[in-house]
């Protein structure tokens, strides 16, 4: 028997596989080549010539139009809605959980789920045209608690304008099994007047892609990208008493709001109550700074509360779940005569619970503000 005979079968199979791969590649190139397409934004306000084939969210971002997306385009947050004026096919099952009947009728779509195959017209809020991608260098990383880090990013010569309370999308590079860059939304905690920097408070979420990266890998001096600013969580220009509630990294937008407040005289104009909940003292942070504001400004009241203070510690503040403390103060200590606005930052569960307490205490639901990305 020819000693090379045993090679024939593998070589034939390898040759056939290579042929098939080439055929698939060529077919993909021609069949799935959608060529150039035009995205008409806001009926001619902007026209983008782009390459078809990718999803609308990514394609728009590559052209400098950043649609909010808390999940980074995975179809799991429902934030990246746009109104589509062209036929891009029926709503996909992945879109349905995020759309109500009226939105379906208006052909509101999740831009991350729409593949661009032909020219398309869309409508987006004009303010999105001002959203940019910033490249910065991590100037400092500070541990605020065992699971919250303060990340301060230097934008170099670039300047950013945002309203205190807004958020940005923090982008981290691929690592381990994560094969692509990933973005998540976090509120800015820095002062808007600090135009060359952005600061974020990032709490470790077990299993979270971005928070794990920030807590285990991010280093001072590292370059990172931030897209923003987004969001309509900001202080309304009224004289109503502000009832602010947060826990954990929900501190971020309030830090920005309060430190801007020092500069623009917010504390002289209106009463502000800030309820901040944590489990134990080791979960509390910025206590000294906030107590200093409390003692300096007569109309600013800081109410830190612990839900499970450790025995043997001399905690002098309020105890109980933050909703219980809030309820008690709304009933007993805060004037029921003055109009109030609610400002909330936290998990969906916390938002629901606080809104319920506020409603029960006759606060108007339309005057309760929060960011929906949490």
């Amino acid at each position, binding site marked *: 028997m020819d000693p090379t005979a045993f090679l024939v079968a593998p070589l034939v199979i390898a040759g056939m596989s290579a042929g098939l791969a080439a055929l698939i590649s060529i077919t993909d190139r021609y069949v799935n080549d959608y060529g150039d397409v035009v995205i008409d934004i806001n009926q001619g306000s902007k026209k983008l010539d782009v390459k078809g084939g990718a999803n609308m969210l990514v394609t728009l971002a590559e052209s400098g139009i950043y649609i909010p997306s808390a999940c980074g385009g995975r179809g799991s947050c429902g934030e990246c809605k746009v109104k589509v004026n062209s036929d891009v096919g029926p709503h996909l099952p992945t879109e349905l959980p995020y759309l109500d009947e009226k939105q379906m009728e208006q052909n509101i779509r999740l831009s991350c789920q729409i593949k661009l195959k032909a020219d398309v017209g869309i409508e987006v809020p004009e303010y999105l045209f001002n959203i940019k991608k910033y490249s910065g260098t991590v100037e400092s990383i500070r541990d605020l608690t065992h699971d919250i880090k303060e990340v301060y990013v230097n934008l170099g010569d670039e300047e950013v304008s945002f309203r205190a309370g807004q958020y940005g999308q923090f982008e981290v590079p691929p690592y381990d099994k*994560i094969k692509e860059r990933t973005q998540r939304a976090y509120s800015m905690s820095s002062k808007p007047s600090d135009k060359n920097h952005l600061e974020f408070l990032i709490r470790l979420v077990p299993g979270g892609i971005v928070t794990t990266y920030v807590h285990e890998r991010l280093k001072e001096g590292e370059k990172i990208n931030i897209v923003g600013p987004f969001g309509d969580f900001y202080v309304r220009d009224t004289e109503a008493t502000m009832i602010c509630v947060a826990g954990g990294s929900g501190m971020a937008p309030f830090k920005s709001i309060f430190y801007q407040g020092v500069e623009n005289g917010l504390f002289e104009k209106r009463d502000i109550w800030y309820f901040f909940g944590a489990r134990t003292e080791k979960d509390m942070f910025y206590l000294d700074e906030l107590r200093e504001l409390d003692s300096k400004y007569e109309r600013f009241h800081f109410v830190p509360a612990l839900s499970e203070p450790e025995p043997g510690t001399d905690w002098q503040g309020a105890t109980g779940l933050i909703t219980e403390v809030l309820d008690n103060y709304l009933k007993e200590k805060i004037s029921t005569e003055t109009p109030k606005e609610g400002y909330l930052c936290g998990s969906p569960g916390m938002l629901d619970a606080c809104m319920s307490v506020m409603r029960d205490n006759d606060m108007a639901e339309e005057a309760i503000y929060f960011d929906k990305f949490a």
Partner: protein
Amino acid sequence: MKMSPEYQKAQKNMEPGVITASGFLGDDHRPIIEIITEDEERMAQAGLDFEETGERLRELLMAGRRGMGEPVTVEGKWLVKTDETRGYLASPFEDGIFRKMNTVVEPVGPEHKGLRLMYSELSLHLLEKWHFLQGKGSPFRLEPDTMRRVLGV
């Protein structure tokens, strides 16, 4: 072991980057039907029933929600932290969507140091309906022996 088209589709959906960035399989590259079969045996060896275990873990998840993002001590036995973010995750079996809600359960006491379970609403659905505990190396893997020790069964 042959897999039905339903399981084959689910296995594809469990790859990293399809539903979640890190996927559901960890370092385990076996067909999911093999993972499930082996875990059914290991659950039986650990003396755990899928339905009862799912129910208990769900009770702890919901108890953790009361903390609104902060950990809470439940029945004096467990420290439970439930994190919620907006939105939903689809089941890899394409049979439902689930709130993005992660829970970490740690038994209280120095003798249990380092022992913990991490799961989501979707993990519980996969456990109860499909007996799928995720692949070894997945951060959300529900190891039968770890569940037994954490729950104190």
